[in-house]
């Protein structure tokens, strides 16, 4: 009885793995098809679409643009998020629950609503649509994730360490920089990678806050609206390999750091 259940459930799991992977594998395969026409069956194969992507300076510039936005917005998110986490995990104070709620808010607002709220606010602040506006929106949107990850790590830190440092004469700033921050490194790195991926993959905020220059998801979206082509598959595959590689590396890296510390 239990054994039958187990086998059945394991089939469900592997079916789910297939469901999750098959569409992406098909999309990757289509990028090697030697025809302009998207569809099965694939009779002959080519690398021309990839050669085209790497020869296309516009696409390469878009990659660079997206990466720059991801890196800059991540730096802001991580700095702000860590600060908020330190405050929330510190001593109890009046309104802490409310502050926590407000901190999490950007992560709960549905995508489209968040995007247009940012669009209106950027207008009020006088930020023109473009790189600055996208960086700002991504930074704000990603802060809650940093706070959650860093708080989780912070809550496991023994208080005695800080007390010991203070007893030895360190002021709060030195104690933070030399004790707390090193302890938080794995969480901060993990949160950074997560923010990088969120920003790099984000469509809706980049779409509403972007100027003339598209980020990568916006470029793919625009190309898709004017018709499918294996060229899009090649671009999407390069983006996919990039994100999956960064994600996997980060996973390994943070796990190793957690083990070591």
């Amino acid at each position, binding site marked *: 009885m239990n054994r039958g259940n187990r086998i059945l459930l394991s089939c469900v799991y592997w079916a*789910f793995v297939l469901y999750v992977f098959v569409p992406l594998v098909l999309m990757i395969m289509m990028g090697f098809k030697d025809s302009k026409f998207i569809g099965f069956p694939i009779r002959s194969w080519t690398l021309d679409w990839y050669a085209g992507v790497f020869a296309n300076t516009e696409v390469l510039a878009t990659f660079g643009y997206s990466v720059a936005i991801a890196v800059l917005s991540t730096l802001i998110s991580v700095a702000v998020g860590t600060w908020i986490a330190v405050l929330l995990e510190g001593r109890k104070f009046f309104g802490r629950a409310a502050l926590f709620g*407000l901190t999490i808010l950007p992560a709960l607002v549905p995508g489209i609503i968040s995007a247009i709220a940012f669009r209106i606010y950027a207008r009020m602040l006088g930020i023109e649509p473009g790189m600055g506006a996208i960086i700002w929106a991504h930074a704000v949107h990603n802060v809650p994730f940093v706070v959650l990850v860093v708080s989780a790590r912070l809550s496991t830190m023994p208080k005695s360490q800080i007390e010991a440092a203070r007893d030895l004469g360190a002021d709060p700033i030195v104690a933070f920089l030399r004790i707390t921050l090193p*302890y938080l490194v794995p969480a901060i790195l993990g949160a950074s990678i997560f923010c990088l991926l969120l920003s790099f993959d984000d469509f809706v905020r980049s779409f509403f806050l972007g100027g003339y220059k598209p980020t990568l998801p916006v470029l793919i979206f625009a190309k898709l609206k004017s018709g499918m082509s294996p060229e899009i598959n090649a671009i999407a595959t390069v983006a996919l390999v990039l994100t999956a590689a960064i994600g996997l590396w980060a996973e390994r890296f943070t796990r190793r750091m957690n083990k070591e510390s």
Partner: protein
Amino acid sequence: MSDDAAGRSFSKAEIAGQGERTFWGRLANWPLYRGFTAFLTASPRRQFVILAIFPLIWVLTQHLGPMLQMLRVSLTDAYPVAPGTEQHFTLQNYTRFFGDRIFWQPFFRTLIFAGVFTFCTLILTYPVAYFLARHVSRKNQVLMLLLLLIPFWVGEVVRTYAIMILLGNTGAVNMVLKWIGLIDRPIPFMYTSFSMGVGIVYLTALYMLLPLYSALEKLPKSYNEAAADLGAGAWTRFRRVTLPLTLEGISSGCTLVFLISTGFYATPVLLGGPSTTVFAETIAGFFHVAGDQWPTGAAFATIMFAAALVLTGIFQKLMNSLRKGDTK
């Protein structure tokens, strides 16, 4: 443990950095820095205020600000204000929604679709989470969960495109069906609520899977064993023990997935058709196609957000009372 990291034999001077020619020593002895820290840490109260002031300003201006500004704009008759004209407060943007049935259809469609897709995601991922948490060894759990994480690092647009290739008229599903002889002509999956559903479930599955997994993982195996000893069958054990005790995970997973599903824009545009227009497209229309009708767009977004919050609030209340009822 990292106790060692900090507990390495630091001497008093080393930690505080006093009297040493290290970076920390020089910093601690620098008069400007000393004055600075003395000012900051004069009292615990001042120290706390200085720590709290920036997060407070950030959260109020950056997290709450955009939402409040959206609400304010939704109550005005023109935004951005053209030079030489005045801005008035009005409710006309809201009455426009309630007065015109054209807008109701995409509105209710969005909420119903989001609800149905959330339910589908729950049904799809619960057995997977259950299997991972109950039937897999600790070591393999991490690996098997990681395997599922990989596709979810890929962006919304790319994954939507993958679904387009899967379901298209010359897509993989139709090719397989034709090849095994079930159909002669391709089934038009694309641009229907079906293709949109497949796409949205595909995008949100992880947000359901993780809360369910952590709820199931916390549940001690002994509960089920005790139920079995008392003579409960597999189905009764699931219905009376596992399900009630994972309601919290179900509730947070469903809330998250519902909120995310209502906010998709690219996926309905690419996978849906004219018969599946969702409210996100209506709202976006006020910002792109239809010229500057920002106040109306803001009002519609506010209505949508309020409706989503009210529905998830009711849902959570319901789940809470269900949970309490079961423990009695």
